[in-house]
């Protein structure tokens, strides 16, 4: 069995073992060990690619090119973070007697299963296989959203599943239409749906069918990415799901969905030039950034706040790709990388505060958390600085790259709107985070939150924060090479 298949098998096995049973420490060890091994295998696969080979499996259905390798590494990384944080998360809830055997099974089974589905998305070279993988991510995450079995979590899970399935229905229709548009030029069998084949055949495709297919596929996968106006499932799901699962959604699934969007964009670009799908992405991206502004300013819940920040960031990536310049694509992929490093810190520290106060609502958390939970609060402030794109951190550089590409191209108006929205978002996030971290403390007699303990979850958050800060000043050369290779894949003419 080759390396690529091992990368997919290990998380699947971990999920199987975790979902069965056994003592707690065994399950914890399995999950962390399994996901650490998975990350190692992801790195090895990407290393193989950088060394010049192209890992493939099942004919050509799974294939690692630059873009796949980048997404693979990022997903493997957050998978490991989420697994280690998850151990701490569940331990905290165990201590408070909130965990049932059903929850334990679901948690240790579904988190690795979700990681598996994300990795599967990122290495599929085939539109059909990709669709199947994306559907698997949806199914793996539903019960993680419904995890706490509250009224609101069932509501969030239902809305997520309905909207997600509808989006996937559209994506399937898009896939069928793209396949139909290229009929006669693609050949027979599974390979007919391979990217490589579709991009080659794109110039001869039937234009009407192709356009319709691209629109449906972009809307479908855009729903998974959470681009406005298909974003409405996101705040609900983020609020209800346990923080480790939210991280997988906010980084892993988001990257996976952006990966799908980029693949569709590549086909469309080869056939119709960059304007058609680029224009659509630019519009949806700007709309996402703009929609996030008011909702962040009036937000009442910390995790929903971070969901809107996620919508903002996926919007920025879509704008970067939609600008139709190589620098824009590079900026978008750099943004994806830095976002994957910074966002877990924000979600983990917010999750810790929410667990300590038994609620993620801002007025339940109250002000002055810096006194009660100093580590989590300072990490939250740090991550807020990072995710709003402030210098000297990474997202500042990627946003500047995108803005510069925009101002030097033909989309000056769109870029100006983006810049204004980014400033407003900075103010919004700073205001909300400042309110809970500083702010007046609530009356201690009314409610006493749990004291903060430096456990494995908080340790994971700290490590993630260190990685995110260091990455701003020093991005390892292989990672930069991967981003460049991915840009080449998206932009370069084959």
């Amino acid at each position, binding site marked *: 069995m080759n390396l690529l298949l091992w990368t997919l098998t290990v998380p699947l096995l971990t999920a199987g073992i975790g979902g069965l049973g056994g003592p707690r420490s065994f399950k914890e060890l399995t999950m962390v060990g399994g996901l650490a091994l998975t990350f190692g295998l992801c790195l090895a696969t990407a290393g193989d690619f950088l060394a010049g080979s192209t890992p493939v499996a099942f004919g050509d259905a799974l294939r690692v090119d630059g873009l796949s390798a980048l997404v693979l590494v990022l997903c493997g990384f957050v998978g490991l973070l989420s697994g280690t944080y998850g151990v701490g998360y569940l331990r905290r809830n165990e201590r408070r007697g909130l965990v049932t055997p059903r929850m334990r099974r679901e948690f240790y089974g579904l988190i690795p299963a979700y990681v598996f589905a994300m990795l599967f998305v990122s290495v599929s070279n*085939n539109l*059909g*296989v990709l*669709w*199947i993988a994306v*559907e*698997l991510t*949806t*199914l793996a995450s*539903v*019960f993680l959203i*419904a995890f706490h*079995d509250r*009224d*609101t979590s*069932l*509501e*969030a*899970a*239902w*809305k997520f*599943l*309905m909207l997600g*399935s*509808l989006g996937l*229905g559209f994506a*399937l*229709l898009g896939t*069928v*239409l793209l*396949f*139909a548009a290229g*009929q006669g030029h693609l050949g*027979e*069998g*599974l390979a*007919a*749906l391979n990217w490589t084949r579709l991009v080659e055949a794109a110039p001869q495709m*039937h234009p*009407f*069918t192709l356009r*319709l297919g691209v629109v449906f596929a972009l809307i479908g996968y855009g729903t998974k990415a959470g681009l406005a106006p298909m974003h409405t499932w996101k*705040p*609900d799901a983020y*609020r209800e799901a346990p923080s480790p699962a939210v991280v997988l959604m906010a980084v892993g699934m988001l990257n996976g969905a952006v990966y799908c969007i980029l693949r569709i964009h590549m086909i469309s670009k080869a056939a119709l030039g960059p304007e058609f799908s680029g224009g659509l992405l630019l519009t949806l991206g700007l709309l996402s950034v703009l929609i996030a502004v008011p*909702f962040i300013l*009036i*937000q*009442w*819940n910390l995790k*929903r706040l971070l969901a809107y920040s996620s919508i903002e960031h996926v919007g920025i990536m879509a704008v970067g790709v939609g600008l139709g310049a190589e620098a824009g694509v590079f900026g978008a992929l750099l943004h994806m990388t830095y976002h994957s490093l910074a966002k877990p810190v924000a979600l983990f520290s917010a999750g810790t505060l929410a667990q300590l106060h038994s609620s993620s609502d801002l007025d339940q958390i109250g002000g002055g958390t810096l006194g009660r939970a100093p580590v989590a609060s300072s990490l939250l402030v740090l991550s807020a600085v990072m995710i709003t794109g402030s210098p000297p951190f990474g997202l500042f550089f990627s946003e500047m790259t995108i803005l510069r590409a925009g101002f030097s191209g033909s989309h000056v108006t769109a870029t100006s709107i983006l810049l204004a929205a980014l400033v407003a978002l900075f103010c919004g996030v700073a205001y909300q985070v400042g309110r809970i971290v500083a702010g007046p403390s609530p009356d201690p007699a009314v409610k006493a939150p749990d004291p903060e303990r430096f456990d494995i979850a908080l340790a994971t958050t700290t490590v993630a924060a260190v990685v995110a800060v260091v990455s701003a000043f020093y991005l390892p050369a292989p990672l930069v090479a991967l981003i460049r290779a991915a840009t080449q894949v998206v932009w370069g003419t084959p």
Partner: protein
Amino acid sequence: MTANILIFCAAGMLVTAYLMVGQKALFTTIRLYGVQSLLLGIVATTIAIAESRPELFVTAALTVTLKAILIPWFLMRTVDRIGIHREIEPFLSVPASLLVCLGLTVVGYRVSTGFQEGARGVGHHLIGVALSLLLIGLFLMVTRKKAITQILALLTVENAVFLVALGVTSGMPLIVELGISFDVILAVLVLGVLVRRIVGRFESMDVSRLSKLKG
């Protein structure tokens, strides 16, 4: 002959969709979905024979076993266990809904003329019906309140996508179809479990009650 069978089945699928819109008893709606899937299976079989594409027989067999028998059976069992048998008043009255669906059918047929294969003949009907079915499925989804009806609307959309696939491509690669079918059955199981949990908590499967999360 082949053309007649195809057009008859496609028209039948459209009729089942209209009946679903006009129907309030959940069991009947589920059966209508079963009939719709059976007709889809016949379409696939007919194309398989006419164009001698053996892999389409597998598609047809999968469609009939999963969507005409297994999924309806599972949904009926779920409805039976829950003990709620009727759809409550939808957001839009039945006559108004039927009128809207008529409009949607016109739109579906109009769009289908843009396709290479959709300009005339059998392909025109298959694609036209498929796109109308898609729109009607979406319409059902937004106007109905019962969780089961929403699932059926989703499955109708999915049938429509399969009909498009048969109309414009005479079938996707077999392995992809197998994967999609597997995912669909998994999705229905997940939905079923979720419906049961919702009913257990809310003592109703009126999804319009799921409205606490806002902002």
